[in-house]
């Protein structure tokens, strides 16, 4: 954030062509790139290749696995676990929408209305990051406890009847239901929504709001026609930064949910670490990756923003 305010005057960085030729510069970029790129190739790209190969292998732990191009694993995995896939997408989408609805007012508040409280609120948004997210997620078990005040209030107001009818909760409980998992996901990824939203809102010239007001736009119209469209880059990167990790998450479903709320991350984790069925786990993780990359690409195309990071 400070980098933006301290940026050099309009002249900015000169085009590469204007640079004086370096004496020993020809191979310098490659030496600078080499170690980091090697790290990413060996420990990020190569594992993907191994995983692709594992997903078409057959065999057992005792006799070892062989590549048999057994693509049926994909079909079987999808057939067996499509409910978990669907659930992951629904929970992640719900959490993303909730994050946007909850995060936008706070980002707006920090950017335009906080005044001298701005830095303090900013710290309070970031500071929870430094307490392990697992500890904070466990705190939700206390907040949503069966005999706790939250559940009691929701019960008294008959909200639980409504959510129960919708299938979000079961009986008089919130814990171990989809509502608890979505609530946990929303909580965990909210800062990832707020920060990009804030960054793009902060860049908006305040005079645009005045101009809209001078042209007799009411506050709501100003928001709809000026503020929101200008904050689109933040909305797009915020929704991506929320949706992607939420879709692959298994911590919230495990700690706050039940066997009926298992997400695809839970399945991959169990298959890999407990059942030790590596081909199925690899196939599932490959499908998840492909699905997310496809959705992200489509989303970026449709929203027309290329400059995300």
């Amino acid at each position, binding site marked *: 954030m400070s980098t933006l305010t301290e940026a050099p005057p309009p002249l900015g960085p000169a085009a590469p062509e204007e640079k004086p030729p370096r004496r020993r510069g020809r191979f310098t970029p490659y030496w600078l790139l080499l170690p980091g*790129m090697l790290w990413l190739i060996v420990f990020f790209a190569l594992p993907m290749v191994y995983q692709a190969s594992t997903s078409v292998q057959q065999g057992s732990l005792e006799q070892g696995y062989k590549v048999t191009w057994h693509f049926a694993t994909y079909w079987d995995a999808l057939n067996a676990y499509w409910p978990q896939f669907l659930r992951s997408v629904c929970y992640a989408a719900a959490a993303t929408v909730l994050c946007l609805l909850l995060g936008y007012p706070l980002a707006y508040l920090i950017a335009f209305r906080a005044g001298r409280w701005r830095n303090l609120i900013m710290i309070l948004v970031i500071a929870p990051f430094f307490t392990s997210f697992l500890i904070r997620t466990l705190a939700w078990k206390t907040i949503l406890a069966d005999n706790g005040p939250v559940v009691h209030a929701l019960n008294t107001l008959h909200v639980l009847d409504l959510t129960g009818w919708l299938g979000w909760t079961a009986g008089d409980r919130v814990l171990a239901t989809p509502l608890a998992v979505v609530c946990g996901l929303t909580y965990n990824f909210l800062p990832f929504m707020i920060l990009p939203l804030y960054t793009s809102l902060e860049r908006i010239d305040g005079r645009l709001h005045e101009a809209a007001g001078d042209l007799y736009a009411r506050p709501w119209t100003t928001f709809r026609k000026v503020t929101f469209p200008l904050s689109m880059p933040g909305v797009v990167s915020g929704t991506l930064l929320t949706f992607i990790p939420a879709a692959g998450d298994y911590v919230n479903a495990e700690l706050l949910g039940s066997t009926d709320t298992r997400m695809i991350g839970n399945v991959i984790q169990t298959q890999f670490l407990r059942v030790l069925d590596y081909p199925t786990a690899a196939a599932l993780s490959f499908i998840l990756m492909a699905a997310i990359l496809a959705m992200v690409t489509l989303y970026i195309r449709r929203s027309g923003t290329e400059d995300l990071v």
Partner: protein
Amino acid sequence: MPFLNWLKRRLVVIAGLLTLAYLLLPNIIVTVFSFNKPKGRFNYEWQRFSADAWKDPCGVADMCGSLSLSLQIAVWATVGATVLGTMISFALVRYRFRARGAVNSLIFLPMAMPEVVMAASLLTLFLNMGAQLGFWTILIAHIMFCLSFVVTAVKARVMSMDPRLEEAARDLYAGPVQTFLRVTLPIAAPGIAAGALLSFALSFDDFIITNFNAGSTVTFPMFVWGSAQRGTPVQINVIGTAMFLLAVLFVLFAMVLGNRRNKQKA
């Protein structure tokens, strides 16, 4: 209705503050429950006040060991990712080279990938290589996913830097090393610091990738995960509260320092 008007004008503020409360509520619960004296093995229900856990934060077997392991991994992951990431960012901003598109996407992809996918595929690699899972595999994984975040943070800073400053240094007969150490590095420092801080936080708090690649090694997040099954000691809340307070103090300190420096400049 003056009240309704008042409410209407402050709707954004009220909604924003409610969200802030939602964000902070778990931290408040963690703090309050660090003074609890639970009846059973789980610290989810309030019983009565007690400062026992604060007097003996390491009283739980293996917890402080896992904490120190997590700190060590976070420090080394931060060093590794910051050095490698800074080098990449300088290459990206300052030089022209082939395959720039490939480099950019290789940096972007780890950030756009669900953690569980990276975790699972890295484990397949380690299993195939017959690597011993433990400290080193965790460190390798952490450097891998922190790298992209460092590159993003440092790149933003170096890009906003005026290259004429370096030219000026060269015009004043500074050698390449001197120019880098006395001009480039100090200007890039805030970006590098931001990247390092982010790496530390990400590595220290990472659970999913560590869970897959740790073998039987237990980091602090893995200790918490295990305790969610076995029983949650109050000391977990003590550590959580202490970390929160330290972070807030650290940021406040950094801000005061920054303000003072700005005043000195002016």
